[in-house]
């Protein structure tokens, strides 16, 4: 596809130095193909959380860019990410979304693969001759690394180690985010999935966008009780911020008191959590553990946005999968406490259902405005999309600029990385 790349040599025209995005960024199918090659085939892409692969043989289907993969824990306990394609005639070897198995067998001619992707056997091998090398015909395997339970894979053997790609600030925020286990390991409880007719970058922008919240989510805010509604009024209080954390990553801090869930444990409990407090007390949890668990149930006070496909959003993971230039699949993964009180996990799931997913009080309105962006770009091809909000008062943070809570600093971080990767 290198010939097509010539068309996009003027990257400044696509994302300008003064933070304006060309309309074709959401619409051009050739550019989309380039992005899949130059970004999704070359960097670390999130594929699974550790808790989704609890045992040896546990697997789930996932994607790295456009490519379908199987994420599986083998007998040694290592996680492998394998392209879901038989090495013989390309049929998928697994169409079960998640489960447990001891091997993968192609349904077409019966080639069998181990949990590490190695070719174990095939019917009537004689016709390939005596020098057929089974070792060279395993499922294509991606480089796989993880940090604090988050599993990433890449097609690029040359890319820097995951920990360096994340960098110190992202790692610090991941560790803080995982405190919402409330003293228990964080566990995936389920997921909401919906597809939206929009370019993947519309979604990439959105999780760093506090500016839309009081407008798009007014109806969600209205369904909250007083204290909870206060917590979501982060634009009015102006205490939060958005910070570029390097390599396209950013954090949007909405509720600074909730960055570290081990702090401020004596803050008054929101009204909506009082029945849970009562339930945990009755179950015999000691008072300081009750405080810790209840605080954790409310989630973290920030969205951590990783380039290119996963965001740690208050209390859940948001994962995007590009499908084509005008279509993106979204997963909202619900999290809970592994081994924690059932009452706390029930509350986590009800809170997730309240905002997230196809029937949530928040996601459908997000999906509507994302689709409206894609529809709007049909007009005014020459008009730029503005992501320059808040440039006027940015100041240096730990690794990159930090701006107002409603600044588009996080989007600029992502587009800066986009440009870097597209120019390599």
């Amino acid at each position, binding site marked *: 596809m290198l010939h097509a790349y010539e068309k996009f040599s003027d990257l400044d025209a696509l994302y300008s130095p003064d933070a304006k995005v060309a309309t074709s960024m959401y619409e051009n199918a050739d550019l989309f193909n380039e992005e899949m090659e130059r970004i999704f085939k070359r960097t670390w892409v999130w594929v699974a959380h550790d808790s989704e692969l609890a045992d040896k043989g546990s697997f789930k289907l996932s994607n790295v860019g456009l490519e379908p993969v199987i994420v599986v824990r083998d007998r040694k306990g290592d996680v492998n990410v394998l392209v879901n394609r038989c090495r013989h005639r390309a049929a998928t070897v697994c169409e079960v*979304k998640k489960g447990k198995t001891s091997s993968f067998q192609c349904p077409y001619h019966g080639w069998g693969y181990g949990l590490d992707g190695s070719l174990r056997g095939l019917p009537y091998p004689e016709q390939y001759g005596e020098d057929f090398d089974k070792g060279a015909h395993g499922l294509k395997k991606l480089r796989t690394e993880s940090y604090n339970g988050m599993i990433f894979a890449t097609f690029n053997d040359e890319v820097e180690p995951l920990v360096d790609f994340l960098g110190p600030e992202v790692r610090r925020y991941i560790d803080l985010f995982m405190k919402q286990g409330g003293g228990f390991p964080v566990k995936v*409880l*389920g*997921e*909401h*999935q*919906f*597809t*939206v007719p929009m370019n993947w970058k519309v979604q990439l922008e959105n999780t760093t966008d506090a500016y839309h919240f009081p407008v*798009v989510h*007014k*109806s*969600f805010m*209205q*369904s909250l009780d007083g204290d909870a509604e206060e917590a979501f009024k982060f634009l009015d209080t102006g205490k939060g911020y958005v910070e570029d954390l390097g390599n396209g990553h950013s954090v949007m801090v909405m509720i600074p008191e909730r960055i570290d869930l081990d702090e401020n444990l004596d803050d008054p409990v929101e009204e909506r959590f009082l029945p849970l407090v009562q339930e945990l007390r009755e179950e015999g949890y000691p008072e300081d553990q009750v405080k810790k668990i209840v605080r954790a149930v409310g989630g973290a006070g920030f969205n951590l946005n990783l380039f290119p496909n996963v965001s740690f959003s208050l209390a859940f993971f948001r994962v995007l999968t590009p499908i084509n230039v005008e279509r993106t*699949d979204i997963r909202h993964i*619900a999290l809970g406490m592994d081994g924690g009180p*059932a009452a706390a*996990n*029930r509350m986590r*799931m*009800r809170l*997730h*259902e*309240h905002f997230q*997913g*196809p*029937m949530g*009080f928040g*996601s*459908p*309105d997000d*999906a*509507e*405005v994302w*689709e409206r962006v894609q*529809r709007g770009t049909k007009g005014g091809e020459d008009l730029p999309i503005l992501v320059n909000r808040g440039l006027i008062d940015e100041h240096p943070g730990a690794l990159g600029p930090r701006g107002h809570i409603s600044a588009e600093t996080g989007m600029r971080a992502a587009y800066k990385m986009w440009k870097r990767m597209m120019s390599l």
Partner: protein
Amino acid sequence: MNMMTKTNDLVLLQKVSAFLWAEADLLDAKDYDAWLALWLTEGFYTLPIGEGDDFDNQLNLCHDNDRMRRDRIQRFQQGFSISSAPPARTVRTVSRFVIESVEGDTVTVSSAEHVIEDKFGRQRVWAANMKHTLVASGDGFKIRTKVVRLLNSDGMLNSFSYLF
């Protein structure tokens, strides 16, 4: 089965069908206040994900008690939710009624639902298995539980600005 029982079964099937058709009509018309009035306060309106049925302890698309049902309707009606102002329009068919059990004044009925939605000049089709638990009330019924299992509940969906 004697003739009399069979007649009674058919009368019940007819009464239940009429009730579910009337409910479907309210939902297509988005006459949500009338729909809320069909419910018993303790009832749950649930769209599960996958096959599980421990709704309290699993993640669902929605699992609404009385308060959540009312909040959901308020969200639809107040005009601040961009996805429901205007919502997709719907035409639905409910059929394949099977009375699963009758205990005292409580009837459990399963049915099939097809919904076609229209918005932005495109139409989408949804299919679901439904199960209602209905409690006799006056000439008709009240809903105690309604479980709607979308055929692809654990797959990629879209966002919904209406009820199933």
